[in-house]
């Protein structure tokens, strides 16, 4: 016996969560474009899409975030923090790959120096994930050793019922239990057949790829030039990625007052690593694409024991020139290391 949340009760739940102080957020489609957005009613959700166009990370690591306000007055500088928003958030209808993306970045934002802008939001959020019954040509979670019903990073996992009229609710954390407690009266005990999970074929053998990447001899392989020749050096793959975390720090204002901000930045950009002297350690697009792949599947796991990719496939889905992690790793897996 597990608990079932029927779809027709979802709006009651949203209202209940809202009155419990949560801002309720979920996938919303507007003008054929979808993102995780705050909603008023359950009817605002678009739960039929494979996954939102934009990833979940931006609710925790926004594209631009004010950090400090500075004012200079008569030989003294006053620096004032922008504290991250402290409100509670419940994010409903998250895809397992997006939820996994959050837990992938936790150690990065936490090693030695804790980035409060990330963690304050993490601590105030409940992630309610819905397992996937649909996938498209670009989904690759299974290749990353995740699955359409992975629980990584989620507080509650909902498994869709076969009749498409609700979900089995599985609590995974204390935070998840509390969120379910709040809507207890709308849950029903029962056991209904659940819908089959989406079939996501494995696109490549990850271990083979990682072995090739870890071999120092392949760092300067001709492969990198060939695979990245058509890369135009935009940042759409990194900006839509649920795990890419690189950023820039920029001041806006003048000497007397202004705001220091944290802005997304991308390893695809030529200026990302450019020294003022003009020397650029990653001066070619192939070096930059190599950095992205190496970082995700070699450097990052070397430090944090987890791949910096959760297999959402947005990079390939959105690439203006049809590149992406899938193609690169597929090709690597056929190379002999």
């Amino acid at each position, binding site marked *: 016996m597990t608990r079932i949340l029927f779809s027709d009760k979802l709006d009651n739940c949203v209202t209940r969560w809202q009155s419990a102080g949560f*801002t309720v*957020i979920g996938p919303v489609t507007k003008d054929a474009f979808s993102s995780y957005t*705050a909603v008023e009613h359950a009817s605002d959700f678009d739960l039929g899409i494979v996954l939102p166009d934009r990833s979940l990370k931006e*609710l925790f690591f*926004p594209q631009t*975030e*004010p950090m400090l*306000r500075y004012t200079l007055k008569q030989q003294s500088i006053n620096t004032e923090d*922008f*504290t*991250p*928003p402290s409100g509670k*958030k419940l994010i409903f209808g998250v895809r397992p790959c997006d939820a996994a993306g959050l837990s992938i970045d936790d150690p990065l934002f936490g090693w030695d120096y804790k980035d409060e802008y990330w963690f304050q939001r993490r601590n105030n959020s409940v992630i309610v994930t819905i397992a996937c019954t649909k996938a498209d040509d670009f989904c690759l979670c299974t290749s990353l050793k995740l699955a359409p019903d992975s629980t990584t990073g989620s507080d509650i996992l909902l498994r869709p019922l076969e009749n498409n009229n609700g979900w089995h609710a599985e609590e995974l954390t204390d935070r998840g239990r509390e969120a379910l407690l709040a809507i207890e009266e709308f849950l029903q005990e029962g056991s209904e057949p659940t819908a089959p999970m989406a079939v996501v074929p494995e696109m490549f053998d990850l271990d083979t790829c990682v072995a090739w990447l870890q071999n120092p001899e392949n760092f300067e392989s001709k492969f990198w030039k060939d695979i990245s020749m058509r890369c135009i050096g935009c940042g759409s793959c990194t900006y839509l990625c649920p795990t890419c975390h690189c950023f820039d720090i920029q001041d*806006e204002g003048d000497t007397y007052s202004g*705001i220091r901000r944290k802005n997304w930045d991308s390893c695809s950009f030529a200026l990302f690593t450019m020294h003022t002297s003009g020397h650029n350690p990653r001066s070619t697009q192939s070096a930059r694409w190599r950095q992205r792949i190496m970082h995700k599947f070699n450097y990052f796991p070397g430090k944090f024991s987890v791949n910096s990719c959760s297999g959402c496939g947005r990079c390939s889905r959105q690439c203006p020139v049809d590149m992406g992690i899938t193609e690169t790793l597929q090709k690597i897996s056929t190379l002999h290391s």
Partner: protein
Amino acid sequence: MSETFEPKIIAFVCTYCTYAGADLAGTSRLKYAPNVRLIRLPCTGRISPMFILKALQKGADGILISGCHPGDCHFTHGNYHARRRWMVFRSLLDFMGISTERVKFSWISAAEGGKFADLINNVTEDIRKLGPFDQYKELIRETEAPATL
């Protein structure tokens, strides 16, 4: 909008004609509205659209660009280039919803002190009627606000 709204107007002017015209207005003791801040440049051809965006970014309600009459350019054709540029940029701003009423262009020679004073008064009045550029200022305010989610 309160009656006391005083528009902030930035004028980019060429040093050879309009700036000299402004000088003449001053030495002729003509009175004109104090709302316009003059920025002097060698030529209207030097005025990049970036300047206008910067002025708006810093909260200008209106912008005035003024230089030598066609044929009078100290650099022979800087103002002809500028004229084409403004034609296109003005249309772009209009399409973006930045009313052309807020971005004005004029030719004023060094001898036209009176025209300068009149122009400043008229432009100030026009912009005062339009009121503050609230839509743009709202964008500026957003950049100073803390993150909401």
